[in-house]
């Protein structure tokens, strides 16, 4: 599970781009069960994560991230790899 700071920031960003109320967003939120989480919202979310956390998110990886929880774990793992110099 992603740490609370990442999870909270993810909820803020997704709420901003999708228009979904932040309080309704949970780790099991997906594009299928979240109104407004469409292709453009996901593109903007990925762009924001790349910019904010200094990541480059491969499109192949994006295709595997099915829920908000998946994205949080991915960001956390990517940050850890970056810290290790990976």
């Amino acid at each position, binding site marked *: 599970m992603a740490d609370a700071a990442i999870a909270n920031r993810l909820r803020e960003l997704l709420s901003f781009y999708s228009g979904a109320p932040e309080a309704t967003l949970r780790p099991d939120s997906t594009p299928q069960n979240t109104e407004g989480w469409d*292709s453009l919202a996901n593109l903007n979310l990925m762009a924001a994560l790349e910019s904010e956390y200094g990541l480059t998110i491969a499109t192949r990886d994006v*295709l595997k991230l099915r829920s908000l929880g998946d994205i949080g774990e991915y960001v956390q793992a990517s940050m850890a790899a970056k810290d290790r110099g990976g």
Partner: protein
Amino acid sequence: MNVAGKLAAVARELKQPGPAGRKLFRVMQRGTHSFRLAPAIIVERAVMVEARQQPKATRALSDLAIRRAGSADVSAVAALDNRPVSLLEARLARGDLIYLGQLDEQVVCATCFHRGPTPFDEERAIFARWALEDDATFWSYDAMAPVPMRALGVVAKLFEVALNEIFEMHGARQVRGFIYDWNQLSLLLHQRMGFSVIATMTAVGLPGVKWLRWESDGRSRQWVLRRNSDFALPPAMV
């Protein structure tokens, strides 16, 4: 869905909030599809959208290779959601631009543009031909992607890059398209890409004949036409 299920869906539709006329229209619209009356009988409404400037470029998904499709790509594009290859070949033959998104060697999404002044007429049996004033007016249509990829950003990225190229490299002054009123997700995507709704078209078609109603900027007009009429909606309407 069996007949009881379809009737239950109609009953649910009638219970939705909203004006009675709108609900009745929606029931008729769904009914033509549910009871397989379409395309012989059609009841449809669509909005026309227009963009006059390119969308802001987003950095994400930069490894998605986006390029114009050629005849060698037609089979891969058609396989995205089981389109007939002949349909895509016809689009290329008439000069339409097909853009595709590719990951490694795999085509994952595609979208199409038709350039004026030739009217766009793929939907003319349902609506009308869409007049395009000049070769700086483009008609945007048809986003294709396998269902699991539709909300992940690849379609938005493709549309964003293709639109930028249409404006920058092909000299577009405006890009238009129409969106069925049941496709609210597509409408939302277009609006967030900078498109505005400029008109609404309603069509009721019976075998051999159709009635069209066009509403724009507080004005409306209507026509009764043959189903495959060559009538093109005049540019002055929009």
